[in-house]
């Protein structure tokens, strides 16, 4: 969770404020003193058990490093930037931030539109008469035509939905009709009432036959046919008697 440290906008802002308290030109500040002040400030804040945002801690670590570079004489073989170089960099960043702050306030002090300078209060809008140019290609026209004719054709040739007996349906009906009858009865007799409609005859027979085979497999009924294309007889399976 980010906790704003006393209303500062980040570590650089805090540093800038501390530097200003030195009451000297930024070019003349003591970076070493500034680093110490910053570290002390962060320490105080942490003692108050205020959580400090990571940015501030990163800066603190960097300043501690800077401090050590400034205080310890550089070895000749040292590849790292000198303390003076780091200090100058920090000074530059502070000056740059301060300059941008100043620029911002100068900007806001300019004669601004709507504050010191005004635009026409009653602008006269330009009326635009929109004229459409319609676009279509021959392909679009042909596609539109074909599409419609196909739509028309399909609806013409699918006039009615046929009743289809599902296998499940046929099986339930057969089980109900055969019931406990152990007499051989032709399938068509059982289905007589459903075979009246010529449109449904085929589906009723086909589904019932398929279901009866399933019922035989389950050992619920027996099937018998005495001759080719002869009537199909069904009865309840004997072994299944109660």
């Amino acid at each position: 969770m980010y906790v704003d440290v006393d209303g500062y906008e980040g570590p650089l802002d805090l540093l800038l404020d501390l530097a200003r308290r030195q009451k000297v030109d930024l070019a003349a500040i003591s970076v070493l003193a500034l680093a110490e002040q910053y570290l002390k400030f962060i320490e105080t804040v942490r003692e108050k058990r205020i959580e400090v945002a990571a940015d501030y801690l990163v800066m603190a670590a960097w300043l501690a490093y800077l401090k050590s570079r400034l205080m310890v004489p550089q070895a000749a073989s040292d590849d790292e930037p000198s303390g003076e170089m780091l200090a100058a960099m920090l000074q530059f960043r502070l000056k740059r931030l301060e300059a941008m702050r100043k620029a911002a306030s100068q900007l806001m002090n300019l004669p601004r539109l709507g504050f010191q300078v005004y635009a026409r209060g009653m602008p006269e809008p330009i009326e635009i008469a929109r004229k459409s140019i319609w676009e279509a290609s021959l392909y679009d026209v042909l596609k539109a035509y074909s599409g419609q004719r196909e739509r028309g054709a399909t609806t013409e040739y699918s006039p009615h939905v046929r009743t289809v007996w599902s296998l499940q349906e046929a099986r339930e009906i057969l089980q109900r009709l055969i019931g406990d009858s152990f007499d051989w009865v032709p399938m068509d007799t059982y289905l007589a009432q459903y075979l009246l409609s010529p449109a449904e005859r085929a589906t009723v027979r086909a589904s019932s036959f398929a279901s009866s085979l399933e019922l035989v497999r389950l050992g619920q009924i027996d099937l018998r046919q005495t001759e080719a294309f002869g009537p199909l007889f069904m009865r309840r399976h004997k072994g299944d008697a109660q």
Partner: protein
Amino acid sequence: MTDDAMDRSEIAERNLRILEALLFASSEPLAADEMAVYLGEGAKAGALLVELQKRYASRGVNLVRRGDKWAFRTAEDLGFLLRRESHETRPLSRAALETLSIIAYHQPATRAEIEEVRGVATGKGTLDILLEVGWVRMRGRRRTPGRPVTYGTTDAFLDHFGLESLGDLPGLDELKGSGLLSNRLPPSMQIPLPFDGALRDDEDPLDPGDLDGADETEHEPGQ
């Protein structure tokens, strides 16, 4: 010019500048009284406004009086600057495309005939657009009860779609060949030969007034 006179003209100029700025920035016309409070003491707003009006009389913007209020307005002769025509290309709607294609193949076709092929009622706007674009025209009136208007295509239609004549519209076999029509269509299906010659035997000429922009009224789709 005496010093005094110069001062006075300087003061007048300053007051004129103030009036200009006030009138320019105001979002509504201003009365002389309203503006007077911004002027130097003793200034006569009315007289200054008349002076300002004179100065702008020949400019592109004039100071005009509306009742007892004043405002800057574009000079009347330059009003055309504020009206602009914009041309935008827009694709034809699907309904318009369908209607156009039916008229193209089935012409002369009445609105009822178009609707029969489309399977939906044709909104008034759809035919209007096609008439306005100039691709469709009213040909005549069918000699049947209700005397419905017959529609056909125009030369502009041929021109736009790059056709030399209606005979160039692809027929059934060509539409099938190009894949636009499927091959599974019933053999009974036919595509008419479009006809855009003179009036047919079952067509009367249009009634006087038919072309005055009024659409046929005999047939309003009930939806």
